[in-house]
């Protein structure tokens, strides 16, 4: 059972991802709506993978959260996929710099999302 954490402030997108995993066996999904909650959840929920939105309200954004998670020895093993709506090269580069394992540009295809998750988790 792979544990997936969804960090996304947009309710509709959270629901979309959640629905995407519904009916697929082998995944447990948790949703949070801010970067702080995502960091917290990596410690309590201990997910295998985080789908991290970049632009989220609050003091820190998805990039910063990724850096924190990757720099913490307890959580640095967690795979992080950045979800970016900006789709600009610099965001992707910054994401990779802070340790993100992959990135997915919005709008994405749910099928593609699953394929990417499966590929990074195996």
């Amino acid at each position, binding site marked *: 059972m792979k544990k997936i954490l969804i960090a996304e402030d947009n309710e509709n997108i959270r629901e979309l991802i959640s629905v995407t995993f519904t009916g697929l066996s082998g995944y447990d999904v948790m949703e949070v709506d801010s970067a702080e909650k995502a960091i917290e959840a990596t410690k309590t929920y201990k997910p295998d993978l985080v789908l991290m939105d970049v632009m989220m309200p609050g003091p820190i954004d998805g990039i910063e959260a990724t850096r924190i998670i990757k720099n913490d020895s307890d959580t640095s093993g967690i795979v992080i996929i950045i979800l970016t709506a900006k789709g600009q090269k610099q965001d992707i580069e910054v994401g990779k710099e802070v340790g993100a394992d992959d990135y997915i540009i919005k709008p994405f295809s749910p*099928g593609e999302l699953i394929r990417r998750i499966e590929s990074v988790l195996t």
Partner: protein
Amino acid sequence: MAWEPLYNLELVEASRFFGFYEIMIPTEIILFLSIALQFWAAIYALKLIRVTGRRLAWICISFAILLMAFRRCITVFRLVTDDIKHSPDQMAEGVALLISVLMVVGISRIHIYFQQVKKLEEERSQAESLLVRFGRILDHSFNEIYIFNAETWKFIQVNFGACKNLQYSQEELTKLTPVDLKPEHAKETFAELVRPLMEKQVPMVVFEAVHERKDGTLYPVLVRLQLMHDEVPPVFVAIIGDITEQKKYEAELESHRNHLEELVESRTRELEKSLQRTKSYFDMPLMGSVISNLNKGFIDVNEEMCRITGYRKDELLQKTWAEITHPDDMKIDAGLFSELVSGVRDTYTMEKRYVRKDGSIVPVEIFVSCIRNEAGAVNYFAAMVNDISDRKGVEGEKERLSQMKTDFLSTAAHELRTPLTTIRGFSELISTRSNFSGEQIRNYSHLINKESENLADIIDDLLDLSRIESGKSFSLNVKLANLVGSVNEEIETFNRQDTGHEFPLLLKGDPYEVFIDPEKMRQVLRNLYSNSVKYAETGCEISTKIEFNDDAVLISVSDKGEGMSQDQVNRIFEKFYRSEEVHKFRGTGLGMSIVKYLIDAHAGKIWIKSEIGKGTTVTFEIPKICCIWRDEYSVNIPPIDDQHKTLLKLICEMADSIRNGEEMKNPELILDELVSYAEFHLKYEENLLEKYRYPELLVYKRSHKDFGDKIEHFKNTPKDERLHLLPKITVFTYNWLMARILKEDAIYSSYLIEKGVNK
């Protein structure tokens, strides 16, 4: 010989007495000596004729002496012939010798005397002739020479020059005194003048005076006055020269000198002016001015230079420009400077940075030129220094705007991609998965629908902004409408969205319709309400107040939300602006920019009052007077009112019939429409002018007046005549209205907008 006995008697006695001579000196020698002396005396006497000129006397004397000499010669002869009887008495002969000696001495004395007398006489005559010549010369000198009594001042003697100059005769002059000749002198002043001479303080006084001729003409003179104390009576001698010519030269000289002085003065003034001008250019606060030397040291700087560099003038004068130039710019500057020094170039311009006194950096543009002397050596360097912080600031502003645009595009992309993600994701899931219930499918479809609406809104915003910005395809469809209706409709919409807020509405004043584009007005209201909804907590009031004033309608939307800082308020209308705090809400940062544009387009004003923690009130004003629209928005200006529409129609018909040479239809109707409409239009435009007072528009005002005068004339003309005037005024009005209302009003309104209606 009769005289012999006497002779003998006398000599005998004497020879007895002097008997010893017989032994000592032989008689012959005495005789010879006597003869020689008597001959000498006789010749001497003859010589005296020449000296004294008394010929007869001296010949007689000489003859007498010669006789005596002959007598001695005979005696000697007798002695030689041994006639002893007649041997002369030695004693007597000795006396005779003595007498002879005395005679010679006497005659020689007389000779010397007369010679001296003659010499003296010659000398005197020579001196006299010199004096005469001198006197003659002096007499004919052009200098006036006067000798006058030291006590009475009456002229004793005057020379010919004086008579000639003064045109008086000698006789006339002797009756005058120097004071009579000098009109500017009275006795007292002349006495004062000669006092130093009288008191022997000075040997001579020299003064200038004016002499009056007999005919009353005047001429300037230079007087040299001396007092001869030794003369009896003492006299003054005055030697006076006519200095008219001298004065003339002096005057000429003086005028030349004055001219020169004036010239020098004017040149000096010009130079000073030019210097002042140069100085004033130098001191002009627009640019820093610098004079520097070969060693890069400052010689002079102006105030602006001090302002730019932050140093005081005295501090700068102790420095070199190399010291205050940014090290990174020094290489280029020094390179150009050395080229300037070596004469490769005359000037150079560069942008560089100064390190100010406080350590901050100021960007400047310098223009340096080398000032050389005639020999080509470097005198100094003049530099103008332009502070380009502002320009750099503008460049910075451009960069900032560009950054904002990039940010905006990024944000816009994000905002577009987010709803698109939902749409794409759910539509893919619905189409690829078969395990969804009908309920789920309906829900997801609803989500898709909602997000697509959201997407459409965002796209609308973007398009609106781009249209407004380009000013091309943006159109304002203005019509007379009830603002209250627009507000109510929008409030209804928000109420339906169930945001959890109250939307009370307060009306003030008598409502009237205004010219608005109702759709655009609702867009404005929608933006304001959605902002308030975002920032005000659920349950809060979002109140709207509509105030109908005399000249404008005021609509204000207030919330008791988070409020904004003054900085945020100041920047709220900037395009793409989103404050940091705003990021937690969705938005393109365009809403308020669009609002501002729309209100501008309605010739309105918008302003915001906000306080952090207390809430925000946005107020906008739509003017009651309708036709002020910016033409760059391609406002579709409708006829101003129904009356106007009718009039236009009538006038168009009228114009057509006039052109076609047809009979006018309903001239009376046109006339009435025309007059009442023109009155209305003029009145409200006059109001506009009164309100905004733009002198540039006085041109318009005059044309209004022209038209107004025509209308007045029209109204006051008898009915029948008015009909004749009608075609003329109709054509005029037609042109006037078409031109003004359909075109010029738009220009007019843009003028008003530009000049501050929206400020």
